[in-house]
């Protein structure tokens, strides 16, 4: 299968959908040159730096028969548009009794690894998860990004595509031709039997590396990538935990009221899944500080494969048998 970078896969999804549907148009303070050259300045609009207004303009155009894509670029620029996101986009369909549909796609890069310090290295997606009325996703591979973007563009609701800064240049296989990945469907990136690791974006790759390492220690790790944050695929996550009896959640964001907290709650509040747990749920997240600039500091703040591996060992250790082997899930 051919390989594309994460960023290329995203652009390909946008271009393919724009070729098919003339109601799609794109707004960004600095749109990609390739999109501008192919579609012209009416459909790929370079905008003033006014994310607040443009976020609302996208809503109004969506309610008037178009499918706008508003690219905030870095998520940090979406914060000046919070009124339009929180009070308008998230509520406009519901608040007016479902009179109109508002098919808007917002794009935002998230995450660290770029040495850009506190304002440009953020993972605030749980703030948006807390709102009712938006759909959100954060893919870990070029293939997933393209498929999810296509679904989002065709969706009749406001959707935010969070895209990982660290993965923009990462290459991966992308199928030829038109395909979509449904919003709300998790993907099991690696099957295993001893512990479930739920991870998103860059940390999926770190979890896979940790899993490969731990295989040599006799620990079988299952890596679940929810891909979509809202709606979150609780079924797949719970089903994996019921199989392994152990759960570790890895998130590039801090733990407080975050994605990791939501996954922990979904697992532990479900009686059938809770009954299968043989160890406390473990979270491996960023430290609760603004992201610092110096590489020494930044690397200390973010979780990585080493911390995930250590966390998995800790979870497994809690229930290691007298013979030193990994004990299976508790029988109900």
């Amino acid at each position, binding site marked *: 299968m051919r390989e594309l970078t994460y960023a290329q896969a995203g652009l390909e999804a946008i271009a393919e959908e724009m070729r098919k549907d003339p109601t799609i*148009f794109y707004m960004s303070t600095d749109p990609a040159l390739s999109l501008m050259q192919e579609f012209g300045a009416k459909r790929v609009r370079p905008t003033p730096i006014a994310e607040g*207004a443009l976020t609302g303009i996208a809503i109004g*155009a969506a*309610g008037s*028969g178009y499918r706008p894509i508003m690219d905030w670029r870095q998520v940090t620029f979406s914060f000046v548009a919070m009124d339009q996101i929180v009070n308008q986009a998230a509520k406009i369909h519901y608040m007016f009794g*479902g009179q109109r549909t508002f098919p808007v796609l917002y794009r935002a890069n998230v995450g660290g690894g770029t040495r850009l310090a506190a304002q440009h290295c953020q993972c605030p997606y749980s703030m948006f998860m807390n709102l009712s009325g938006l759909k959100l996703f954060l893919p870990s591979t070029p293939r997933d990004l393209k498929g999810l973007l296509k679904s989002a563009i065709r969706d009749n*609701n406001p959707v935010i595509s969070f895209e990982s800064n660290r993965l923009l240049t990462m290459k991966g296989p992308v199928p030829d031709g038109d395909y979509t990945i449904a919003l709300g469907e998790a993907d099991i990136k690696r099957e295993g039997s001893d512990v479930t690791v739920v991870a998103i974006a860059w940390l999926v790759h770190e979890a896979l590396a940790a899993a490969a390492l731990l295989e040599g220690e006799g620990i079988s790790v299952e890596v679940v990538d929810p891909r979509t944050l809202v709606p979150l695929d609780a079924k797949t996550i719970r089903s994996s935990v019921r199989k392994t009896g152990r759960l570790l959640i890895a998130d590039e964001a801090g733990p407080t009221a975050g994605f990791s907290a939501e996954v922990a709650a979904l697992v532990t509040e479900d009686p059938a899944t809770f009954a299968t747990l043989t160890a406390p749920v473990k979270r491996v997240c960023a430290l609760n500080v603004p992201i610092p600039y110096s590489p020494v500091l930044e690397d200390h703040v973010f979780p990585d494969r080493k911390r995930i591996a250590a966390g998995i060992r800790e979870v497994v250790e809690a229930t290691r048998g007298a013979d030193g082997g990994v004990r299976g899930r508790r029988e109900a």
Partner: protein
Amino acid sequence: MAEGTLGSRACVVTAGGVGGFVTARGDGARVSKFPHLPDRKGGTGRAVERPPARGRRVLTSKVGMDGIPVAKLAALAHDENLATEIGSTPVNLSPDEQRAMLRQMQTIRRFEERASSDYHAGKIYGVVHCYIGEEAVAVGVCAALQQGDQIISTHRGHGHCIAKGADLKRMMAELYGRQTGYCKGKGGSMHIADFEIGMLGANGIVAGGISIVTGAGLAAQMDGKGRIAVSFFGDGASNAGPFHECLNIAAAWKLPMVYVCENNMYAAQTAAAETHAMPDVAGRAAGYGIPGIVVDGNDVFAVTQAAARAVARARTGEGPTLIECKTYRWRAHTERIGQPDFRTEEEIEDWKKKDPIVRLLGQLKAQGAMTDADWQAMDGEVLADIEAAVAYAAASPFPKPEHALEDMYAA
């Protein structure tokens, strides 16, 4: 507010076009990302002088290196032609059309009188913001619109709904929190919308709707069918970011927009005089290179003439206009009991003497187009319409509790 602002029925405080700007831009030899834009060579320092826009005086002082002015002063011009054309007489309006405007204004007033009393009787929940005293703005502007044009409203939205042709029954049912209301009881007074008639919603956030309706204007431009969009907002919103961002975008993209500032002199309880450095919001249009018109917002003929000019500009691709309607709300910011109102009785009474409905009625009588008996009959019909809306609302079922989970996502 500067005395004499309303000396004539309207005055244009700015005229479009930014003259005399120098562009100096170093694009280099790379592929242009903006092939659609006119060539703006000048990276070598060669200054490109554009002639000043008509009616605008541009004073350029010393010219420095490479012909770039060291400093310049652009004096605001008054386009007296536009201003003097707007008057307090009906232009292109038949007596029937004028009577329809009067009836619509009275419908707004009677609807809100009833909404207020039913609110205080506990039949309407949350909050009601009354538009009484400002009726000429919504009616005057919407009279200049056509089917297919879109508007957006504010937290004080009943007047805009009625002026755009919303159904009184579904409006009142929404206020009553009933399933038959415009939003199935999910919105209430601050969130009535009727997308079928191009009313994109009242909005509980000051300045919250300006960008949404600007998006509707962008859609109208892309459709190319000559439709336009109107943003209603208050003097308070004119101090918020979306106003400025959207005026700039609409001007830069020549969107078919009309921005209507209802300056009732108070943002909630705070006087505009405390929060505005310039008495006229319309003066801000100068910063965006578009016309700004100040109009007597209690004069429905002046409002509709100003709106008609702005609408014509928008329809013919000339871009947006900012209209400021000087007006006043008679009632407090909200109907909530115990809310402070720092305005003096004297000021309120003064403005009641400028009642837009009394003024229009007087003009109709002066034309011989209306008698006292006609007026009494019209008011009786209006009251009957309101009564029917209330009866419909009161007889309508409340939504079922589980309806709270419906309409979360569109299919």
